[in-house]
């Protein structure tokens, strides 16, 4: 089955006022009404899954996914405990939670499910599920926000979620429980006096909402770091939910957006925004950040993973590495991966350049973008052929540039794939976007194996 899809997305506020005290402030009441309108739209959408990414559930060890089928407890906010308590009993799709957890791991993420009696579900999730799904008709999942994760990790988290939505045929709604500006008043205030903390915060919030109302989610996502610096108190969780939500929507800028409400919550900016995947007609700009498929663990610098003792030793990704040979006419680049035998990266003859077979391994780390095709024990891995193909072409470019040539002077390419059936389409798509535009002749062969656990290698002839 491959019919699952994201049918809607929402941005919703996290503070408990909308549940416990909507009558105390006109704005809080408007947010409550907007929440109720969002709940109605979700029900009308025919969605069968609610996915909550909550900024008020920070995690340290990767991401955590709630998997208790029926978590129940009483939530009291750490700051606004005087507003009262929220008793909750939610309908969690445990099966989806476990599947997402596995999908995360396949894409290189640290991830685990949690299912413990009395687990303290965070205020943002409690508020969102209480108001968006009051009768628990729609099963839900909740994911934490990792305090250390960067954009690539957050993007991969979304892609893993989409994998499961698609493979299980679900009609899902993505929800980010978050504030816009998150600076609250640091003193108690009369509820009637509530307002956005500063003019500056208000102006930024309005700009964000202008973008979202035009469906320009990816633009907001790309501004995320700037927004965080400008209007966010430096709490542990940054303005990450837009990264996740944009990736859930294929990093599009032409969604159909509508701001249902925007009001102050003790000074912070709270908004209910509806983002529908129907194209709005606004031009969809390019996605200009790394479109990572598998998380390689940039944060691994803090881990206890043992690094290779020598840069030339390569225990995990195939045979030992060699320094390139340097016979006359040889061209070698520090920006290309080390050879796995006694040969140069390229050899120049007149104005012609003959490259040795080039794979996707990365110079220095020897890591394989998109992941290896099998692990150290030979067990198959779920690699990404597009990421590998991109990396091959990047390596070719570096060698060509070292020789004074460039990618647009490539004349002939012989490509080797270890799994033609699985990989030809993805390889071909990347080719079309890159070398296909240059126009070299090409031959593509299926072979049994390559010396390292890679899926693609190219042999190139170019002019200088």
């Amino acid at each position: 089955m491959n019919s699952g899809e994201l049918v809607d997305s929402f941005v919703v506020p996290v503070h408990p006022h909308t549940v416990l005290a909507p009558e105390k402030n006109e704005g809080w009441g408007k947010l409550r009404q907007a929440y109720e309108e969002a709940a109605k739209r979700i029900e009308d959408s025919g969605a069968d899954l609610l996915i909550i990414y909550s900024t008020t559930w920070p995690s340290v060890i990767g991401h955590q996914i709630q998997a208790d089928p029926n978590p129940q407890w009483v939530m009291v906010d750490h700051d606004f405990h005087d507003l009262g308590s929220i008793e909750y009993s939610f309908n969690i799709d445990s099966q989806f939670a476990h599947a997402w957890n596995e999908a995360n791991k396949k894409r290189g993420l640290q991830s685990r499910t949690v299912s413990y009696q009395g687990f303290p579900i965070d205020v943002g999730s409690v508020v969102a599920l209480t108001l968006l799904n009051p009768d628990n008709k729609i099963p839900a999942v909740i994911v934490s926000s990792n305090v250390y994760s960067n954009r690539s990790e957050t993007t991969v988290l979304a892609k893993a979620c989409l994998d499961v939505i698609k493979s299980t045929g679900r009609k899902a709604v993505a929800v980010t429980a978050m504030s816009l500006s998150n600076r609250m008043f640091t003193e108690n205030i009369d509820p009637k006096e509530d307002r956005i903390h500063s003019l500056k915060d208000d102006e930024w919030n309005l700009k964000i909402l202008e973008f979202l109302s035009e469906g320009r989610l990816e633009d907001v996502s790309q501004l995320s770091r700037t927004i965080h610096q400008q209007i966010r108190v430096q709490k542990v969780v940054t303005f990450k939910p837009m990264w996740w939500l944009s990736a859930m929507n294929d990093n599009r800028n032409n969604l159909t957006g509508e701001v249902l409400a925007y009001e102050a919550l003790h000074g912070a900016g709270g908004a209910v925004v509806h983002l529908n995947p129907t194209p709005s007609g606004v031009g969809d700009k390019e996605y200009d950040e790394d479109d990572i498929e598998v998380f390689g663990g940039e944060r691994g610098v803090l881990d206890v993973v043992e690094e290779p003792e020598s840069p030339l030793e390569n225990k995990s990704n195939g045979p030992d590495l060699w320094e390139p040979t340097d016979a006359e006419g040889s061209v070698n680049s520090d920006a290309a991966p080390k050879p796995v035998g006694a040969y140069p990266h390229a050899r120049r003859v007149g104005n012609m350049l003959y490259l040795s077979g080039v794979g996707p391994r990365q110079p220095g780390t020897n890591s394989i973008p998109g992941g290896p095709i099998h692990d150290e024990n030979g067990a198959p891995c779920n690699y990404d052929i597009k990421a590998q193909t991109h990396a091959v072409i990047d390596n070719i470019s570096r060698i060509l540039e070292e020789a004074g040539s460039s990618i647009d002077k490539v004349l002939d390419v012989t490509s080797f794939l270890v799994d033609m059936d699985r990989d030809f389409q993805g390889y071909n798509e990347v080719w079309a976007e890159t070398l296909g535009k240059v126009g070299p002749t090409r031959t593509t062969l299926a072979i049994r194996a390559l010396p390292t656990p890679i899926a693609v290698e190219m042999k190139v002839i170019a002019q200088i």
Partner: protein
Amino acid sequence: MTKGEIVAGCLAPHPPHLVYAENPPQNEPTAEGGWEQLRWGYERLRESLSDIDYDVIVVLSPHWQTYIGTHFLGLPHFKNLSVDPVFPNLFRYNYDLDVDVDLAKQIHDKAEQAGLTVKMMTNPDFRVDYGTITTGHMFNPKWDKPMVVISSNRSSAYYSVDVMQEMMIELGKVTREAIIESGKKAVVIASNSLSHRHFTTESEVPEDMSKEHITSHAMHLWDMRIIDYMRSGQCQRIIDEMPEFTEQAIAESDGGAFSWLLSTLEVPDYPAILHGYGTIIGTGNAIVEWPVYKHKEGE
């Protein structure tokens, strides 16, 4: 009325791993041990204070995070299940603690008079943060002393470490005054670690000590520098360097507990006792005692 006094001050961090490793009956998960250096450090701290008479434990925990001033538990009794939202696999603890509401209110009132924003927490459904519970268990596993539990005002996030410290020094002063006026003998505790950069992975067996070490050399240097100041009675230097320490070691002193503690102790110039140091998922943790009872001159 007899004047009250602070009999000891302690740095007593709260990683739930310590409770997990100790396997107390209140905690559901069980372990094969682990983090012994720190657990033995807590044993030494308890032993050191075993002959000291006191009435109340006053603790400031970084995990009751409040952004609208400083809050105080304001009901006499709290009983509930505490599940750590970050390490739920390690910490699911049934707690049962008494609060000295009178003293809490006295500190609250004095802080309010000093211009600080404060609030009493009187919602009976409130779950006490796991930091308070962990420190409470490791410091006093019998739970036979009432506590005053103070929230961590995250003013460092809103303003700066300097502003936070200014506020926490003021809170420390009024805490001290309230304790003296109460006629009670108190132990004051800051429930924070030192350097606070975590590993982002957890080993298959969480108590696998072959995987445990500080996250970086820089963190180690900062931890040792701060410990050296404590051991040599140079706490003013800690106050002076708190902004740099907090920023560069990503230290849990950002929650204000450490500054507050040193202020309650009038920034000690006598040596503290280091009962233990160790790392927990890479963060630096020291168990330290300021034996005020040995330095009562000037009271």
